[in-house]
Structure formats: structure tokens, C-alpha cells
């Protein structure tokens, strides 16, 4: 029987980790992620994660390196980080995915410096978006737990690492009612760990990760690309299967009321819940507002996004990251996904909710209003709109 508990996002992730049963965990504290690894350390200390070991490393760089090492000798592993910690890991992020290691890493999203911020935006995980990991974004605490389990299953099926992103504080530190699955049910969904072919084993010596020539690098990266394609194909089925076990199906995207909508709000993470509420209230007032939540940002479900948005009149994409020098990454993806349509909806890109600023229902209502106004003029805005910027706030 599942248990109903009041958990914040961090503890929800930790519960997911307890149920998944990694054997090696290595991590370094950083706000807002720290309670995840403290909780996991407790689970290891009190025997709730039998046979597991916690490596209290001296940096995030070493945290990811240590779990890569542990994965290379055939164990299920876990780590977590945020913001600057993820940036410090960057070089090893590519090693983890390039060696096809099914690591699960939680990222409690936090804005990258500078200026320093303790709070959420997606600049940390978005900076890693093309590094060959699967990236899943949780909307709430329940999703944070569920996506750990779904993440391990997917990672191990396609041999790729998974970055599970949860918004710092808005998810990581918000307490919600969470259904914690039954261990037996989890075992039925997530089989015991099977070491993959990339394994350091004296009985079968392999050299792993050595220099490659221009003659093979492309082909190895192409296989990596194919693995991400495979992940995208598999995710809807695994998401359905998750639903049959736990009653909560998952899909790469969640689209509601998009066909024929005057405006569709496209977003990632916790703001997707706010967008749904805003859309609901506006629909009750007679406005045609739909929502599209992207759960899998990598691989990006291009086709599904195109299909969901093709009959919308206009689209507002909300990026909780800077997109400096261009526009936000989510917006670029959505525009690219729509490009091949003969008749495309109008798309306007918005930047909002940076460095912990609340991506409130007021902000999202303003996004809808602005997009409607543009639509009435038969156009979209070419440049991104920083919708919640305050005039005169900084000299």
C-alpha cells in the first residue's frame, strides 16, 4: 500500500531514492539541494538503504566523478546538486553521458552566479542541456518522487544519465501531500540493477574512455544521439506503465485545451501548475487559454509539441532562464518544433521568474494579456519580452 505523507520536494526525492535503492551515493552540500543528501545519508545510516555507502566528497566535481567511478564497476548510483555545483561538475557531466552511465542526479534548480542568488531559475540545468543527459522537470513534490523512479527505469533501459530538475524552494522546500509508493510495487516497476557493457572488471578487461580519432568520434556521438531518440520513444510507454503501477501516468509533455486556443502557455517546472490554474480561471471567464507543460526537456519531444500546438492561434513560451544574447532555450525549442508546419501559430517568448522571483498568477495573466493583444494585431513579438522586469529597480 502506498503511504500518504506530507513531504517537501527534497524529501520526496529522498523517498524516491530510498525506494530505488542505489548502492553508492556521493554528494556535496549546496542550497537548495542539501536536504536531499542529508536525508539520503540518514537512510544509509539507519539501514533504510541496506548495503549502500555514502561518500562525503570534497566538491561537486568529485561527487559526480565518484558516482561515475562507482557506476563503472556496476552499481546503481545517485547524486544531487544545484546551481554553481552543477556548473562545477560540467566537465564530468559529459563523461557520465558519453560513457553511457545510467546515473540519476537531482538538481534543485538555482540561478548561476553572478550576481549570487540562492533561489531558482533554470540557468544551471539549461547550461547542461546539450550534454547528452535526459532532463526531466518536476512540477511538484509528487512528480519529484515519481520522476526518480521513472528516471532510473528510463536511464537503465537506454543507458543514459538522468537529470531530475526541481525548482529550488518552490518545489524543493514546499511541503505537499505525497503518495509514497509501496516497495513491492516499486520492485515490480524497477528491476534490480544490471551492469551494462561499459564495466571495469578484471575478469573481462576493457579500456574505457580513451582518446578517439576523427574517424570514430562522430559515430560514437551518433550512437549517443540515437540513445536519446530511443529514450524519447520509450518514455511514453514507461510513463504509461508507471501509471498502471502507481496510478499516475507520465508523458514527455502534458497538453491541455491547446486545440483552437487563443493562447497556449508553455512552461517547465513549478510554473506549469500556476499556468494551469491561470488558464482555468480565464477559461471560466470565457477566454480560450490552453497549457503545455514540458516534462522531458531532453530529449525534447519535438513532434509531440508540434502536434499539440499546431491548431493553437498563439503561443506564449515562458523561460525561467536568461537566454542572454538570444532568447530562452524553451522558446527556441518550441519555435523550432513549429517551423515545419505549413501554417504556424504566432509565438512570443517571455523571460520571467529569474533568481527566485515568483512566477505568479499575476505575471502569467500579464503574459496572456500581452499575447492576446499581440494576437489581435495579428502578430507576435520578435524579441523576447522580459515580462516581470521592474523599471527603476536597479540604478
Amino acid at each position: 500500500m502506498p503511504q500518504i505523507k506530507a513531504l517537501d520536494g527534497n524529501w520526496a526525492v529522498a523517498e524516491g531514492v530510498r525506494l530505488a535503492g542505489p548502492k553508492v551515493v556521493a554528494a556535496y552540500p549546496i542550497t537548495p539541494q542539501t536536504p536531499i543528501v542529508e536525508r539520503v545519508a540518514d537512510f544509509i545510516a539507519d539501514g533504510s538503504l541496506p548495503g549502500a555507502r555514502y561518500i562525503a566528497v570534497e566538491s561537486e566535481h568529485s561527487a559526480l566523478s565518484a558516482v561515475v567511478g562507482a557506476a563503472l564497476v556496476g552499481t546503481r548510483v545517485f547524486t544531487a546538486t544545484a546551481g554553481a555545483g552543477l556548473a562545477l561538475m560540467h566537465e564530468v557531466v559529459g563523461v557520465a553521458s558519453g560513457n553511457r552511465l545510467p546515473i540519476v542526479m537531482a538538481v534543485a534548480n538555482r540561478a548561476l552566479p553572478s550576481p549570487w542568488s540562492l533561489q531558482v531559475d533554470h540557468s544551471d540545468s539549461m547550461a547542461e542541456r546539450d550534454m547528452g543527459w535526459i532532463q526531466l522537470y518536476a512540477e511538484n513534490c509528487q512528480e519529484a518522487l515519481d520522476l526518480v523512479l521513472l528516471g532510473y527505469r528510463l536511464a537503465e533501459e537506454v543507458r543514459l544519465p538522468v537529470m531530475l530538475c526541481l525548482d529550488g524552494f518552490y518545489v524543493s522546500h514546499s511541503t505537499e501531500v505525497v503518495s509514497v509508493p509501496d516497495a513491492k510495487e516499486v520492485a515490480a516497476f524497477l528491476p534490480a540493477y544490471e551492469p551494462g557493457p561499459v564495466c571495469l572488471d578484471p575478469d573481462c578487461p576493457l579500456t574505457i574512455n580513451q582518446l578517439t580519432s576523427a574517424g570514430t568520434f562522430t559515430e560514437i556521438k551518433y550512437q549517443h544521439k540515437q540513445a536519446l531518440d530511443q529514450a524519447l520513444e520509450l518514455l511514453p510507454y514507461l510513463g504509461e506503465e508507471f501509471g498502471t503501477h502507481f496510478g499516475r501516468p507520465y508523458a514527455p509533455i502534458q497538453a491541455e485545451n491547446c486545440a483552437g486556443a487563443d493562447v497556449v502557455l508553455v512552461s517547465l517546472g513549478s510554473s506549469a501548475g500556476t499556468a494551469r490554474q491561470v488558464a482555468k480561471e480565464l477559461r471560466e471567464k470565457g477566454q480560450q487559454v490552453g497549457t503545455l507543460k514540458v516534462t522531458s526537456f531532453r530529449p525534447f519531444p519535438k513532434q509531440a509539441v508540434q502536434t499539440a500546438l499546431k491548431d493553437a492561434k498563439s503561443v506564449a513560451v515562458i523561460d525561467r532562464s536568461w537566454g542572454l544574447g538570444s532568447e530562452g532555450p524553451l522558446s527556441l525549442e518550441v519555435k523550432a518544433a513549429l517551423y515545419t508546419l505549413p501554417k504556424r501559430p504566432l509565438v512570443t517568448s517571455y523571460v520571467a521568474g529569474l533568481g527566485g522571483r515568483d512566477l505568479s498568477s499575476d505575471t502569467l495573466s500579464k503574459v496572456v494579456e500581452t499575447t492576446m493583444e499581440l494576437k489581435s494585431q495579428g502578430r507576435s513579438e520578435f524579441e523576447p519580452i522580459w515580462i516581470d522586469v521592474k523599471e527603476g529597480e536597479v540604478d
Partner: protein
Amino acid sequence: MGAATEKLPLISCGITTCEGCAMELIGRVTLDVLGPKTIILTPPSCSAIITGYGRETGWRVPAFQSNLENIAAYCSGIRVALEVQGKDDVHVVAFAGDGGTVDIGLQALSGAIEREHKFIYICYDNEAYMNTGIQRSGATPLGAWTTTTPAGKKESKKDIVAMLRAQGIPYLATASAGYIDDFRRKVERAKDVDGPVYIHVLTPCATGWRFPPKETVNIARMAVDTGLWPLYEVVDGRLKITRKVKTLKPVTDYVQCQGRFRSIFADQIAQLEKGAEKLYQELLAEEEKA
């Protein structure tokens, strides 16, 4: 592995290191002592030549090419995962250059030692970044030419051995490619240490130090005989000099036969000599105490 392959050397023949490469020699001896139940890691460096290119590898043991700065952290994860699986008969070895050890890799190394993880860290010291074309490292000695110290290095060699001793480590040793039996004995000893091991081996490099390849062993011996690179080990804090030198040879003999010291100043040679003398006396005094 079958009995037939076990007789083959664990590093294959025909490795494309330079003629007279002491690093390769040290790699061979290390695996000869440790045997096939060894997982070896190399960072970007000359030792990565053994790890190979494309479809070719020089290792007959499992090997992983690490990053330059985190080899010790990979070793931590590998060791803990082996322990979790009850695989207690496997050696985990980092085989890294001086740059990957005393400079960019110092944090990860210090962390892994502090965590008391069981692994054998062998730093082969060719006193510069050789693989990238002879640039200065923290381990480059005073007065030595490199491509980034065109007028000779103005600072002294970083004393990583003293730093790690200060940190505390169950087994630590210096070694030289000129005294292979001494090195072999130290690796033998490392096998049974239940915790981190650090062995720092001086490996002269004909290419970067500018001497004829046939001189590798002589130069490696001279470094010891001049007192510039004394051989000792520290077991659980107790120091023992493993090669006593009655009278230290003049440092001039050592620098004269290497092109990298062509423009060294007389006062730098005097400084090196004074430093060598002082270090040797300190080691003797400490050994006496112990």
C-alpha cells in the same frame, strides 16, 4: 583471464612513448608487481599513451581514462563500489603525472586520502606538463627551462610529499626510476595497505629534460645521489630512508648533463645544493628519532 595470457606482460609491447621513457618503465613494473586484478586509471598525460588511441589499448587490465583533475575521485567511487559488491581482491591504481597530481588534481587527491579510501596513487614525476609540450608545472625544479619558463623557473619545486605527509596517510614513499628494486619493493608493500597509498616516482624524461635517451637511468640515479630526490618511505608516520647516500654528489654533475638546465644560474645551483643537503639532514635526523 586464462593462464596463457597471465604470462604476457600486462602492458603490451610497442607502446609509442619516447625512447628511454621512464614513465613507461614505471608503469610496467607497477603492473608486474600488482598483477591482473588491477583497475588502472590514467589522466590526460603521457601515461594516457598506454591507455591508447581509437581501438588500441596498451593495457591488459581494465583501464579508464580520467579527466586531468579528478582521477582520485574516480578511484574513490570505484573502491567504494567494489567494497559494496564484496570484491576485495582488486587493486585500484591511479597512474598520474606531476601536473595532474601537484597542480590541477591536488584537491581530488587530498579529498580521497582524507576519506581514507584504499587506492594506490602513483605519481610519475617528469617535472613538467610533457604531453602538452613541456610546460612548467608546480613540480618543475628551480632553474629548469620549459616552454613557459623560457628563462628558467624562478620558483622552487612544490613539496607535495611533505604536504601529503602533513595530511596523514598510512603509506607514502618516494622512488626513482633509477632504483627499480626499491620501487618494486614499495609497490609490493603498497599491496597490503588498508587505505590510501601515495608513491611519488621521479621519472626523467629525455624529451623534456633534453638528454640522450640512454641516460635515463643514470640521471634518475644522480637525482638520488645528489640528495635532490632522496628515497624514503613513511609507514604510519614513521620515516625510513630506503637508500642511504654517504656523501651527496655535487648538484652540478646532475644539472650539467641536462639541456633544460643550460641557462641555470650559479646561485640557483647553490640554492638547490643547499636545499638538498638540508632535506637529507632533516630526513636522517627524523629517521634517527623514529
